[in-house]
């Protein structure tokens, strides 16, 4: 989910003339209820991957996006329980 939200923010910034991501647009792209998205955004901000006013992705967030596939592969390869991955994907990896 982190990955989806960060990607949505990046896409929004890319398509916005002012280079700003609007939360409502990110909500549409990530297909989440607004209260849920708000909590994810708080969590991402706590992890210093985004800034919220205005909504922006940090260097750390960009690094995470860049490493996302590697992190996923590592988690699957090591068989680590990761709440963000679907159960069937976990089973395939174990």
């Amino acid at each position: 989910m982190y990955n989806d939200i960060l990607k949505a923010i990046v896409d929004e910034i890319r398509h916005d003339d002012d280079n700003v991501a609007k939360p409502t647009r990110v909500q549409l792209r990530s297909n989440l209820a607004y209260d849920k998205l708000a909590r994810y955004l708080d969590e991402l901000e706590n992890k210093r991957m985004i800034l919220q006013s205005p909504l922006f992705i940090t260097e750390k967030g960009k690094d995470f996006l860049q490493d996302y596939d590697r992190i996923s592969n590592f988690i699957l390869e090591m068989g680590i329980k990761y709440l963000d991955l679907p159960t069937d994907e976990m089973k395939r990896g174990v």
Partner: protein
Amino acid sequence: MDTNNKNDLKNYRPMKFVDQMERNKHIILLYDDQKYAYWIIGRYLHNGLAKGESCIFKTADRPEIIEKQLSAEGIDVHSFKKKNLLRIYQVERSDDNKHDILHAFKQRIYEIEESTKGMKPPYRFVGKTVSDIETKDGMKFGILLEKTGHQHFDELNCSLLCYYDISKMEPTRKHEWISSLLRNHHYVIYASEPNRAVAFETVLLEQADNI
């Protein structure tokens, strides 16, 4: 180090993470090839030495072996030892008393105190917390020791990089061992082939299931 290796090292993905790690963190280095493990260890120590931190490599091996490895990673071992910024601290590993976690933990605290005598903080450690990773009992004990250490980590006032050769880890419950180890460290670095190597904060694995 030859030119090819230098280029590989420059592009090795976990290096940026190692360069940006915060102070006083408990780090786990998982590796399947010692060459990559030493790339990380070398960089971690190099960064500490560059900042004037006191670096201690705790080992059960002969210090000369470690010194040779660090020299191969471009660390001027002789000079930093002379400046009292680098110490290879030899420990005996009789594999502890596997039933007495408190004793083993106290022993680790004692080693930290002994190994840093005459040095100035901040301290940066490298070492194998768990010596026996090839048996279930060894892993169970080791994880308990890591857990105890992690719970008290703030009191230790140091950075600590624990390294594990996952190719030698007890295989029947390997996934469980690794998951438990990750839960008891702040950062994980996976030192593998350049296209697989990665590093991240373990807090990312604790994604809120209550959202």
